[in-house]
């Protein structure tokens, strides 16, 4: 039974009149929306509109300036054991000397104090997480020897190893070539179906993700809104959102895509 079928499951996210400040400046306000569990949700908006701040608020790393945020019915931060997080620029920001398998193991035991050897059960979970992202063959390689797409898989495995109910991905497709983008999107679709995990994903280029998205949180004129993806992929809305003329088109195969008409 997937999360979304559970009758009394609390919403994944519930924002009530929330405002966000960064460096003493109000970046968005009056965010009131509810995200049900189980979907793949994009977070979109132009540069600097506060997408990462929104993710950090869900993780409890940034407090709301005003209003109330609930994550799985609790305060932000309380549910972080149920959240897997892959930050922006993961590839550049990570220590490079360590092996992929060690990075994934840290996702399971990294917050525990005192020196301790990993157990066979923990190593098995690490192997399963690496297998889930099709990265078994690079388990023993150093991060520094991996390509961007491979590192993104390792980051996903490190987020998945604690068996999260919510995956938060900040620009997982940035700086990947088209082939790797396609692979990661296919992987996300498969993980979503198999693990019944809710996915919150920040993306600049929506096109590669459009086939798998259910809905989106969009930051329009300094206010976050939530809507099904088909309502968001609208020429007038996207043109307003990005401040540049955007056309929505259908491929002969029935797929949606958007493009700037400048």
């Amino acid at each position, binding site marked *: 039974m997937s999360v979304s079928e559970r009758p009394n499951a609390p919403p994944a996210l519930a924002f009530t009149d929330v405002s966000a400040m960064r460096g003493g400046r109000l970046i968005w306000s009056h965010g009131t929306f509810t995200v049900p569990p189980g979907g793949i949700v994009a977070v979109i908006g132009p540069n600097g509109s506060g997408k990462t701040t929104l993710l950090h608020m869900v*993780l409890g*790393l940034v407090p709301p300036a005003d209003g109330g945020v609930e994550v799985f019915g609790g305060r932000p*931060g309380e549910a*972080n*054991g149920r*959240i897997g*997080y*892959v*930050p922006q620029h*993961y590839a550049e*920001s*990570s*220590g490079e*000397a*360590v*092996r992929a398998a*060690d*990075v994934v193991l*840290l*996702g399971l*035991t*990294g*917050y*525990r*104090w*005192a*020196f*301790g050897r990993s157990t066979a059960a923990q190593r098995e*979970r690490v192997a*399963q*997480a690496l*297998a*889930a992202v*099709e*990265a*078994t*063959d*690079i388990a023993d390689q*150093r991060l520094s020897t991996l*390509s961007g*797409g*491979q590192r993104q898989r390792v980051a996903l495995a*490190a*987020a*998945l*190893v604690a*068996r999260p109910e919510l995956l938060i991905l900040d620009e997982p497709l940035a700086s990947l070539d088209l082939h*790797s983008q396609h692979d990661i999107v296919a992987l996300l679709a*498969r*993980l979503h179906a*198999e*693990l019944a995990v809710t996915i919150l994903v920040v993306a600049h280029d929506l096109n590669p993700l459009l086939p798998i998205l259910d809905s989106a949180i969009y930051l329009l004129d300094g206010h976050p809104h939530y809507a099904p993806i088909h309502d968001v992929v609208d020429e007038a809305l996207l043109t307003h959102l990005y401040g540049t003329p955007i056309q929505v088109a259908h491929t002969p195969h029935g797929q949606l895509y958007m493009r700037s008409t400048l």
Partner: protein
Amino acid sequence: MTSHLIALGYQPHWWPILTSAFMGNALIGGTIVALAAGLIGYFVVVRRTAFAAHALAHIGFPGATGAVLLGVPVVVGLGVFCVGGALVIGVLGKRAADREVVTGTVLAAASGLGLFFNSLATKSSSTVTNVLFGNLLAISQGQLVSFAILLTVLGLSVGIIYRPLLFSSVNALVAEAKGVPVRALSMIFMALLGVTVAMAVQAVGTLLLFALVVTPAATAIMLTPRPVRAMAASTAISLSAVWFGLGASAMFNLPPSFPIVTIACAIWAAVWFSDRRRRVAAQAMDELIGGSTEMTAPTTPASATSGI
């Protein structure tokens, strides 16, 4: 053969020197410093704080000259300045973009202060040489006791914070999201680094400290990506540099810091060259086969993922 060696400064009676009481202190002191350097050096390299380690050694200089001026033990002055300087760098250099400038500025301010203290003192030239280049042979019984206490504190601290510290070193944001107190750990690490530097300065001096704290750890990380093995390898390299260096200093009547640093750097250079050759060979092999590993990732049957 022997005459050539004597021309090099060879001391035929080096064994009694090596087994004398002051050499015993030097061996014990050098061993403790090598253990501390091996433990902390790994994190210095993984956290990319090598410049801070280098700067802290220099920040200890005014501490040592100031201590001579005030008539307090040099260890105390070194400890206060190294740990204090580490905390200042830790507080002001939170953002990676600021860290290098903050570190360099604190380093410059401390060096100026060191020069000033030195100009006030009248008979400190041997102390200055000892602080700049270290002198394991001058280690006293009292210093050994303080070394042993500091190493115990260091070992216990690293034992407790090992996993969260490694987690926050690999990716601070992910660790923070998992509830790891990243800021506090960063400050604790800087304080531990300050303690290690204050000890190591007495062994190899401010100018050569890098070769005992950072170089062996960097060598070890080239040899193995596994954290615990890297720490063990780093400690082993530091230990052999100290032991063989002291042996060479007894044999050839050299200041011990010179052979110690030379051995550590030579091991680094040897490993660096063989690592580079291996990587070049691996790359050539990849090009020969003509396939990047990216494309050859095998697809895993869906059943393998159901446990996650």
